[in-house]
């Protein structure tokens, strides 16, 4: 295993000995199967370049502070993860090879207030845990979960993750945060800055600047607890599903959806192209067993035999039955203008059993990674999801361009759009590949880079990225000669003067490594 940069073996052993005195012998990992769990399982052939030196697992805020104390004394780089299930973006693996993973999975406290509909969770709480906690106590509350739902609630929220109910903007529904700063000081944000203020998880803004966003997708502190708002169980829940036959139908469909989103009739929506629908249910070899992307004839046969459109749209409507009936009419009216649209509706009253195919729309977490089997082999994916304006013609143009780029590297275009804000989409373009196939890994890396470059030419960017692409994506944010990055770096140097927290996260490096990187790149 690699050592942290600048460490000798005795230095590292000494640091680990001190860490063991803080968290216990079993909770410092430096060898064996347990350490291999911190490598990126979906790495496109780069796992060794991002190998950790070990992992340390504190169980409390006090232990986190103890770990940070040791790390500062030794200048030991720590890569913070909640559970490390940020697959497709690096899993638990660090940006800086040899970093020690600060694994917070042992911190698993949950507190739910059913009356005010919120939860306070520590990093080790998964969506499955929170769902089960609420269900076991019969609270009339729903959570919102990503798909798959086995990750950390706190971790996903900090990464700006998304779900499929009206609470699908996870960062938008976070309220209240506890952070341990690099030098060990504990800070609570918002109204939590006042001791015992009961409105801490209820109202986002307090007296003074809003700090929460600084600790999301960043390396300025270690977040040990957050509040999240929960959705009251609706009286009625309707799932609306539509199929559109032609590629070009996406343009009028998005324009119709935008109006419904801005009007507040549709609270969120997910769009999938033929491949995303097909890969959720079948594998590529069932339709075509040749090399390269699926030919159009195979796509035509697939859509015909599966009875699916080129595009599918799905969203939920939530609330009082009479209101939903009116909303349903508005939806039907808006989309029926598009030729050939097929609309299906399923309605569930409070307490009804929700079938698996509609579970995520009802905040029921599940784990099914079926799309990764599309090519066979050991399926993996990497992502750099774009934020795109909700304008139909622009998106059709982007979609066609990206299809050409996927196909040029021999991949089928897996495309999804999720609208957690009424004016934009998150555009997922999953690069699915066989992680055991070095040639496919190389093509996946090349495609990832090409997609990021192409998006930048259109002044678009990803909102998340794989660890191997974080610097590259960060560099695209170039307004005023990268003024935002310079501000992040000033914050980094102030809040983490030892440069120990998650070096390189989102392209933000501590001073020493920044200078070393610049020298390597020949920059002043």
């Amino acid at each position: 295993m690699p050592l942290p940069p600048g460490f000798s073996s005795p230095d590292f052993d000494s640091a680990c000995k001190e860490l063991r005195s803080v968290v216990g012998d079993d909770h410092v990992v430096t060898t064996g199967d347990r350490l291999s769990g911190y490598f990126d399982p979906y790495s496109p052939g780069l796992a060794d370049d991002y190998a950790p030196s070990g992992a340390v697992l504190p169980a409390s805020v006090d232990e986190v502070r103890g770990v940070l104390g040791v790390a500062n004394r030794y200048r030991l780089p720590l890569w913070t993860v909640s559970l490390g299930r940020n697959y497709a973006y690096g899993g638990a693996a660090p940006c800086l090879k040899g970093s020690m993973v600060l694994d917070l999975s042992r911190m698993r406290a949950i507190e739910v207030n059913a009356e005010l509909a919120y939860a306070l969770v520590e990093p080790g709480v998964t969506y499955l845990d929170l769902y089960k906690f609420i269900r076991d106590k019969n609270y009339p509350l729903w959570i919102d979960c990503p798909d798959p739902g086995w990750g950390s609630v706190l971790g996903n929220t900090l990464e700006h993750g998304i779900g499929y109910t009206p609470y699908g903007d996870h960062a938008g529904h976070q309220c209240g945060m506890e952070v341990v700063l690099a030098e060990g000081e504990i800070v609570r944000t918002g109204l939590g800055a006042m001791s015992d203020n009961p409105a801490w998880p209820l109202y986002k803004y307090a007296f003074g600047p809003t700090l929460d966003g600084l600790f999301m997708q960043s390396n300025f502190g270690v977040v040990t607890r957050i509040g999240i708002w929960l959705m009251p169980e609706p009286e009625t829940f309707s799932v609306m599903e539509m199929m559109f036959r032609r590629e070009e139908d996406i343009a009028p469909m998005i324009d119709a959806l935008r109006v419904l989103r801005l009007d507040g009739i549709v609270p969120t929506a997910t769009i999938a192209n033929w491949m995303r629908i097909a890969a959720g249910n079948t594998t590529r070899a069932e339709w075509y067993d040749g090399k390269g992307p699926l030919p159009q004839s195979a796509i035509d046969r697939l859509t015909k035999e599966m009875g699916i459109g080129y595009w599918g749209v799905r969203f939920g409507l939530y609330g009082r039955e009479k209101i939903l009936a009116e909303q349903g009419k508005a939806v039907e009216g808006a989309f029926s203008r598009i030729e050939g649209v097929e609309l299906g509706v399923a309605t569930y009253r409070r307490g009804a059993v929700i079938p698996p195919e509609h579970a995520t729309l009802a905040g029921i977490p599940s784990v099914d990674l079926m799309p990764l089997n599309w090519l066979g082999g050991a399926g993996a994916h990497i992502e750099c999801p774009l934020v795109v304006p909700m304008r139909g013609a622009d998106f059709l143009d982007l979609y066609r361009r990206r299809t050409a780029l996927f196909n040029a590297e021999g991949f089928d275009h897996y495309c999804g759009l999720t609208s957690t804000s009424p004016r934009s989409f998150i555009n997922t373009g999953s690069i699915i590949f066989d992680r055991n196939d070095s040639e496919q890994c190389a093509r996946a890396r090349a495609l990832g880079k090409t997609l990021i470059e192409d998006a930048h030419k259109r002044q678009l960017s990803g909102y998340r990225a794989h660890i191997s692409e974080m610097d590259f994506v960060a560099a695209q944010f170039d307004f005023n000669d990268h003024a935002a990055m310079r501000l992040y770096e000033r914050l980094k140097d102030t809040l983490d003067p030892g440069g120990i927290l998650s070096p390189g996260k989102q392209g933000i490096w501590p001073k020493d490594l920044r200078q070393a990187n610049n020298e390597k790149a020949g920059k002043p």
Partner: protein
Amino acid sequence: MTLPLAMDRRDVLKLVGATSISLLAPAGTAPVAAVRSEAASSTIVLADHRYAESVIFAASLERHGANVVPLATDRAKAWSDAVEPQLHVGLRSLAGLTLESDLFVMERLAAHSGARQCYVGFHDWRCRQGSAHRLSATIDLDPIATALVDGKKRWAESLGEALGQTTMESRTERKLALNCPMTVGRGPRFFVSWLIRWTA
């Protein structure tokens, strides 16, 4: 034939090209009897009912005493409802012939309770005549390879029989690659057989 541990897929395929299947199959292998074996009595086998091969494999292990659990759409539910509770009452092994993502999920869920993978086989019919198999295990691979070669159209059943009878395990990992002329019907054209064990 044992392959070096550090190798990529191209290395395997290169070696597969030079492999004579008969070298791997001991002569006169007797048909495996459908007897209840000690090794499988504390085993759960997951069955994906979309694929006949998966169901046949599970039925084969069931004849050796394993409990069959259908794979629900939600893999985490299959784990938490059917597998995890059995850990407290003597479950020692979890097996399946599934798509690879199911192994990925189960391996990670099981790792928290101290389990580790002791066998995995990749079975590949994509873009080729016949089939290619890459096996890796800390259990004896020879009966498994033999089962595949001898099994032909009944390969899934034969593989289940072989895995149902495994007992000995060492820490030394062994890898093996072979080509077989057997065919498979329309379907994923790629399966993974696997065995996870709890050692504590």
